[in-house]
């Protein structure tokens, strides 16, 4: 009897495995013989930067809805997006990246957050699949990795922009820099800001907090006890509202500056009335009408968002266009251009074609330098309009090289 049971179970397992494979084959065949090229989407959908990752994915999906096919060497391929959630943490990022490489993607888009991109860089390099970073701004993402490219500006630039802004616009002489330990984006941007700000003649005090910390009162008491005129706190979307709220509750009225991650409406929603005097730099502004491609993108994207309640929820509940969505849109189109230029869906061919690709994106034209970084030299400074709960465009800033 026992043997019989064992036999039945073994048979059941074999059948299950067989069914699994069979299902896979059918899945490939059901596209009616169309050729399929896979593009990996390596983004956080949960964790401390989940809200930003979702907006980036929305931009990519919208681009995919406009350009669902690509012409490669005279044949039409259907583009299939393979999405994985890297959960905003570096140890999950590698596993997520591996699942993309084993899914056979030709090129990867992402991620939001530099730490996860750096962590996954080697996986893509080993698998010889090129990755196009969307809003990962730390220089180390592309350094020493021929397979990582990106479409956004870099932290040395962003740090300098914010240091200039603090010095010129805020008339600050002393800055307090608060960064997150072990987060490459946060510590990197903090260090570049410090360097630029001291070069401008300012002084900097520093403090760090642990990932997952929710109480910043100890640090903020030190801020209150210092001569700082301005706080610079590049950190995750999850941290931002807590930090803003606790600072204002403690009676700290000085401006709080941060980087591109803070352009997320969930921060306004969570920080509420306390989000006064918050300034950040980002990649794009939806009201910028100078670029016709951008205006067209904003109208189309808003209509697309409003057509689906789920999209609106993922965007944070409103139809505001985040800079990262625009970057996601551009990254997808760059990937399509690279596939066309490569005339082959093989990872190495796409990688070889990418440095030569140029595209007129909605966030400005995209071309790559020798590191694989986009040549971009303009940042948009925004502030939070507490009354209406939206980001308000302040000015664009470029820096002399």
């Amino acid at each position: 009897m026992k043997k019989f049971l064992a036999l039945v179970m073994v048979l059941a397992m074999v059948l299950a495995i067989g069914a699994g494979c069979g299902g896979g084959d059918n899945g490939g065949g059901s596209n009616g013989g169309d050729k399929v090229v896979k593009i990996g989407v390596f983004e956080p959908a949960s964790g401390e930067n989940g809200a930003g990752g979702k907006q980036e994915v929305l931009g990519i999906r919208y681009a995919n809805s406009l350009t669902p096919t690509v012409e490669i060497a005279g044949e039409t391929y259907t583009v299939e997006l393979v999405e994985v959630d890297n959960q905003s943490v570096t140890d999950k990022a590698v596993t997520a990246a591996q699942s993309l490489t084993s899914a056979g993607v030709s090129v990867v888009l992402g991620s939001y957050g530099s730490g996860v991109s750096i962590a996954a860089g080697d996986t893509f390099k080993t698998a010889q699949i090129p990755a196009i970073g969307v809003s990962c701004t730390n220089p180390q993402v592309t350094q020493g990795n021929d397979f990582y490219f990106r479409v956004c500006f870099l932290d040395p630039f962003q740090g300098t922009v914010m240091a200039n802004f603090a010095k010129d616009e805020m008339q600050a002489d002393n800055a307090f820099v608060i960064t997150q330990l072990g987060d490459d984006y946060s510590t990197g941007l903090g260090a570049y800001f410090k360097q630029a700000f001291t070069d401008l003649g300012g002084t900097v005090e520093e403090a760090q907090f642990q990932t997952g910390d929710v109480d910043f009162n100890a640090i903020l008491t030190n801020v209150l006890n210092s001569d700082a005129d301005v706080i610079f706190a590049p950190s995750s979307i999850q941290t931002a509202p807590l930090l803003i709220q606790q600072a204002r509750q403690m009676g700290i009225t000085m401006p709080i500056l941060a980087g591109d991650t803070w352009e997320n409406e969930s921060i306004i929603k969570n920080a509420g009335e306390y989000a006064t005097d918050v300034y950040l730099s980002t990649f794009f502004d939806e009201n910028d009408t100078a670029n016709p491609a951008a205006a067209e993108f904003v109208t189309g994207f808003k209509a697309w968002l409003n057509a689906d309640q789920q999209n609106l929820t993922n965007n944070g509940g409103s139809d505001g266009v985040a800079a990262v969505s625009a970057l996601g849109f551009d990254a997808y189109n760059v990937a399509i251009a690279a596939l066309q230029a490569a005339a082959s869906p093989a990872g190495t061919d796409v990688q070889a074609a990418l440095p030569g690709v140029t595209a007129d994106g909605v966030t400005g034209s995209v071309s790559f330098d020798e590191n694989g970084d986009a040549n971009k030299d303009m940042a948009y400074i925004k502030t939070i309009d507490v009354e209406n709960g939206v980001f308000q465009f302040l000015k664009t800033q470029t820096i002399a090289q």
Partner: protein
Amino acid sequence: MDNLTYYIQQLLTGVTVGGQYALIAIGYTMVYGILRLINFAHGDIFMAAGFFMVYASATLPLYISLPLTLLLTVILGVAVERIAYKPLRQAPRMSIMISAIGVSYLLQNFATYYTGGLPRPYPKLPFIGDIIQIGSVTTSWVTIITPLLTLALVAGLVALIKYTKMGMAMRAVSRDFETAQLMGIKINNVISMTFVIGSFLAAVASVLFFSKYTTVTPTIGAMPGLKAFVAAVFGGIGSVPGAVVGAFVIGICENIIKAMGYTTFSDAFTFVLLILVLIFKPTGLFGEKTTEKV
């Protein structure tokens, strides 16, 4: 800002954090005292209480949503015990602990699935979020209320354990599970009561915690849960006053370390403390001194 104000502000923060840890730590220590089980899902029950409040207050007024949150959390706590721990009562202790870890992951992942993984803003409660100025110290009411409410609840709990019949039954069960059963104590009722109290305090802690740190995420319970567990071990697991003292010590020490600029070591301090206690005084500050019966 003069020195005195600075120290008062820092100490106040430490005491508040300690108060929050204390309310969670009691849940750990009581369940351990009765069942000899470390309820790893306790931090996630705290997280679930946060989400209950978020969703309840979206449609209901405060005077309904707040009691409803407390009630739902208690129901969740007892349900976890009934479903995941009770069937394993005769199983080796390791199995029930693994079951607790399973519940913890289940709750976290369910919350991630249900909320889409995005942080949710906690509703603003009247009064306790308001800012007050005492002398030159600026803070919010919740900072003051947390330690006071914690001490009041603990005093009530200690009285309940000492002077009521249920309390006596609890003490008997924690002393000797089987003999208590033989003497006619309804074990299941006692255990349920333990989970009711533990979950209720976790719900209160979550209201205080999220009034101060106003975003709820699926994994938010992990760290406070872990710290509270260390506090419970430090104070002597199984002892309610021990857990409270341990929680305040950890809260204040952590904050001093952060204020001195050594944030890198604040978490390390907590866990090094755990290791040291386990090596040199495994029974903790107020732990029972009786040796394990063979």
